[in-house]
């Protein structure tokens, strides 16, 4: 690769050692959590021990066999997956409309979407709580404590992200391709599924994965807008704190479980996460 920044040529072993130390600092809290999750209560007393001699599986099985936690995990998986699918589909439609159609004020709409992602969530807890419990109700059904409620709500911060990520990808697909398909008699749906979808597939996959992870990681809304049925794994993890005499091993095991998707997807999306977290302001 061409070095484009000429003012500090060469690496040097000092930089290398520095990065090893920096990586250890980054990994240490996560490693320690894993260590705690592999130990029984008795082993955790006394001086900290960083080596895992025997793996205490009970911490994990206690969480995985607990019906409440099973429900939390299933909820998290369903909500994240439904949200990722919904957001990616709607964002594909929206970006295609913004990219290809002459719509009045479409650049303003494009910019307005991102403002939904900037507002502090704590500000909207109270109005959302009131809307979910009292306004968005049909008979005895309310959005409060439902999975569908969270799926729709997560769209507020995930849709802008997906639209801003996909915009560049859809714009990069030559207009001539879908126009040729239209001349050949394809309708809009056929153009979207037959021309745009195959070409945008890698971008759509990354968008879907990051959307999934953001939904999986969300805590504040899930904690406020659910009580029993729709609780997610992050709220389950937080519940360990309020219980007196915390079972640290089991808490660490649960935290490790919430980390699994991040570890699985890290390699796939690491190049795109910065664009995602900076509202698409920074492209690598």
């Amino acid at each position, binding site marked *: 690769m061409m070095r484009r920044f000429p003012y500090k040529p060469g690496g040097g072993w000092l930089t290398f050692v520095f990065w090893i130390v920096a990586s250890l600092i980054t990994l240490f809290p996560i490693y320690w959590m894993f260590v705690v999750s592999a130990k029984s209560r008795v082993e955790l007393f006394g001086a900290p021990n960083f080596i895992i001699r025997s793996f205490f599986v009970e911490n994990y099985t206690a969480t995985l066999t607990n019906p409440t936690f099973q429900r939390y995990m299933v909820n998290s998986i369903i909500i994240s997956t439904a949200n990722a699918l919904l957001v990616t589909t709607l964002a594909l439609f929206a970006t295609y409309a913004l990219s290809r159609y002459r719509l009045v004020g479409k*650049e303003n709409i494009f910019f307005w979407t991102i403002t939904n992602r900037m507002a502090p969530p704590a500000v909207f807890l109270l109005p959302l709580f009131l809307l979910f419990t009292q306004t968005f109700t049909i008979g005895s059904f309310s959005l409060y404590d439902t999975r569908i409620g969270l799926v729709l709500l997560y769209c*507020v911060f995930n849709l802008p992200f997906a639209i801003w990520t996909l915009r560049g990808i859809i714009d990069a697909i030559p207009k001539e391709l879908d126009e040729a398909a239209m001349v050949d008699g394809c309708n809009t749906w056929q153009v979207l599924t037959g021309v745009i979808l195959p070409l945008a597939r890698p971008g759509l996959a990354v968008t879907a994965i990051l959307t999934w992870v953001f939904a999986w990681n969300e805590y504040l809304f899930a904690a406020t807008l659910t009580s029993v049925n729709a609780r997610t794994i992050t709220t389950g993890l937080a519940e360990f704190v309020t219980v007196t005499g915390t079972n640290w091993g089991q*808490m660490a095991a649960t935290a490790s479980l919430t980390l699994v998707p991040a570890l699985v997807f890290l390699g796939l999306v690491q190049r795109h996460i910065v664009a995602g977290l900076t509202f698409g302001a920074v492209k690598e």
Partner: protein
Amino acid sequence: MLRLFRPIQHHSNLDRPVPMRSPITGWLLLAPTLVILLVFGLGPFIYVLVVGFTNWNSFAADPTAHFAGVQNFRRLVFDDAFLHSLWLTFGFTFFAVLSEIVLGYLLAQLLMRDIPFKGFFRTIHTLPLMVAPIAVGATWRLLTVPGLGPLPYYLDRWFGFDLRIGSFADQAFAATVIMDVWHWTPLVTLTLLAAISSLPKEPFEQAQIDGASRLQVFWYITLPLLKPAILATVFIRVMDALRTVDEVWMLTGGGPAAATRYVGLHIWRVVFPKTDYGYGAAMSLLTLYVTILLCWLMYVALVARRELPRSE
């Protein structure tokens, strides 16, 4: 590269007739997105705006909402607990973001050098960004809990330092800042790395020929060229730090006492048990207003004094 807060101008061929593209289809494609964002994004905002001017409290003797004018806001200005939490939030944001920018810049420069396993280090560095904030809080709690965590143990053994973030307000505050630095410095690093990699070569070569010192190069060339990227990163980080809730809730629970009860936690913990909806809405509104005001002040102080720097 940088296009924050600036809608992109697209070079579409507006003169050319597009076959069979009626705006109605476009609006139909856009409709579901707009409906969801209006109902769940703009809706709550309008709702909180209305409720903020009422005295609605569902547990009060009169549980219905009545217009109360600016009464809630007048009460808020003298609410010491709320003002204290705002002040704490500013302190937290200041120390966290400042450390992240400095550290992130250094790390980005060090990633520019040719070292073995660069991609590997970079991947590890990205990991904290993917971790759920609530899990970040959990890991740092496991590190700092007395009797379990290695931090209190070794600090006491090697330096005789008594680390108890559950008892000492300063330590709890510092712990939340350090945790935030651990979590978010990678974002700054990767953002600035992208900016540094796209810097032009010529000014640096010219400076080298002219015999400029490293400090001069940094101050007169690198910093001005990186200014737009640094500013964009600062804005993003400030907005995020002001709304931090999950990690801090998990690490300290807002304590000891109210030492780390940042404004998001304050709204959450104070308003919901009391069901004082009118007052809570006013608190939310003021928080939003202060966030916007702070960003605007920063914008004026850092950017608007001179012409807005262009990065492209």
